[in-house]
């Protein structure tokens, strides 16, 4: 198996906006295995409170020793995580999940909204460096400040398109407007997306209309992260039997073919 449970040293953990943090870990054992779209479970508490590890998608693997995550401080767990300093260590379980099927695409379009930007940096890097393809990368956020890691994206050979809700950078509006234009007049053959559910639904619908297949990375509350507890279920699309079943985000995902997800 390629996954590990281990203590990783914190290289750096700093606020990049008021409440979004970039965490860099020394994790040589994980970097060689990690694929874009996979995630890691990070232990945030000391003992039992908070009890569960938190899942974070891998933001980047800039070299063979370092793995990066971005997260928003939203509760007790992420607040505790934000207090970790260089030299501290964090227990990590990973890499977990399936990852994006990027190597099936010759003209990939990446769409990240809000913190859904997180897996897109690693994905763009791998497509560019390993796939030798120049992907289209569409990123959106509320404001320019929340378009995190922009410099790192710019350093990758990709076509970068930006949207902000307040118009402070790139096009004013949503990633979906940009996606509409791009799938309309390019050779785009696959869309890879991560972001809030309403955004993913809109992205999927645009892709379907353009007859382009679409992979989405989903979020869910998780306990184990390895398919043992079945807690992270999301509804799957209706099957031929008419019965709706469940997909398990940690094991069968977090990346799903949009056609397999129930969007209602």
């Amino acid at each position: 198996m390629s996954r590990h449970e281990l203590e990783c040293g914190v290289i750096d953990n700093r606020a990049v906006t008021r409440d979004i943090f970039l965490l860099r870990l020394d994790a040589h054992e994980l970097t060689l295995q990690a694929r874009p779209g996979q995630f890691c479970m990070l232990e945030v508490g000391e003992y039992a409170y908070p009890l569960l590890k938190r899942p974070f998608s891998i933001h980047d693997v800039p070299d063979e020793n370092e793995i990066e995550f971005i997260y928003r401080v939203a509760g007790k767990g992420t607040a505790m995580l934000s207090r970790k300093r260089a030299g501290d260590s964090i227990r990590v379980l990973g890499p977990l999940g399936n990852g994006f099927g990027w190597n099936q695409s010759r003209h990939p379009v990446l769409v990240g909204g809000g913190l859904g930007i997180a897996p897109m940096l690693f994905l763009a890097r791998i497509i560019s460096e390993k796939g030798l393809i120049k992907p289209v990368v569409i990123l959106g956020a509320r404001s320019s400040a929340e378009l995190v890691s922009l410099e790192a994206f710019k350093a990758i050979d990709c076509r970068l398109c930006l949207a902000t809700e307040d118009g402070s950078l790139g096009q004013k509006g949503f990633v979906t407007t940009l996606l509409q234009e791009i799938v309309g007049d390019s050779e785009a053959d696959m869309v890879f997306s991560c972001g809030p559910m309403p955004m993913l639904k809109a992205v999927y619908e645009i892709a379907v209309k353009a007859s382009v297949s679409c992979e989405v990375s989903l979020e869910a509350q998780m306990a184990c992260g390895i398919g043992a507890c079945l807690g992270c279920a999301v509804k799957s699309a209706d099957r031929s039997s008419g019965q709706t079943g469940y997909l398990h985000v940690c094991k069968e995902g977090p990346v799903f073919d949009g056609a397999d997800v129930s969007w209602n």
Partner: protein
Amino acid sequence: MELIQQPDLSVNIAGLELANPVLLASGTCGYGAEVADLVGLSLYDSVPGGIVVKGISLKPRLGNPPPRLAETPCGLLNSIGLENVGVEVFLEQKLPWLRSVNTAVIVNILGNSVEEYAELASLLNVAGVDALEVNISCPNVREGGVAFGADPEMAARVTKAVRNASIKPVIIKLSPNVTDIAVIARACEEAGADALSLINTLLGMAVDIKKRRPVLANVFGGLSGPAVKPVALRMVWQASRAVNIPIIGIGGISSWQDAIEFFMAGAVAVEVGTAVMVRPSVVQEIVSGIGQFMEETGAFDVCSMRL
């Protein structure tokens, strides 16, 4: 030369032989393969003494709608709703792998009626199944589950039916959501149970105050984790003094010290669940810690630690 007595971690529960008294609890380790590399299940020396697989029903079950999880202080609420592949798929696709692993395999079963429990038990009279754990205590499903576990007469009927249908050691898993655990424990013992395991989860709930609705789609869920450990210990103490059959302690065990508390309270083995999901390597720590404690205190075997 002084002869040093090595502590004996092995346990025999009504014919169920365990290399050590630490089992993976049902519902937290899938069918084994999901966690194998992380907890040390292998062909040769497995770390856990046994694995209690996810509850199996006659027909596959889809489980409850999401959200199924809610984290609470030092605890976890779940309402998975016994999602499982059903006994047929279990026998065909899951058991062969489990057979290859060097650890005791205990199959947790769950039915909607006494007859279903008996049918499951007879279908599982096969090689590779070392014992049954009868779930009469799941709080997350409407029929079956805790409906059988809260009533001594029903608990006894299920126990008797499974005992008659099975050639394996039969462990009855008890619910803490009862008025008097001793009464249920005695009813199961009299009906032929070989052992008892307790506790299943405590019924609880959480409310999302922003969304103004319960966190769990199922409203109620089962509470596990360190938060329930004192309740579990108390009930193991009570049950172990009410019956003469072995007790397997379950509930919030997250360290070897926790396990020793359960042995002292009257358990002969423990199941570890939520803690394994949080930190799979804890299984190795618990097994090693128990051995070291026994050596340091001169405990000859697990049972001798009972207070």
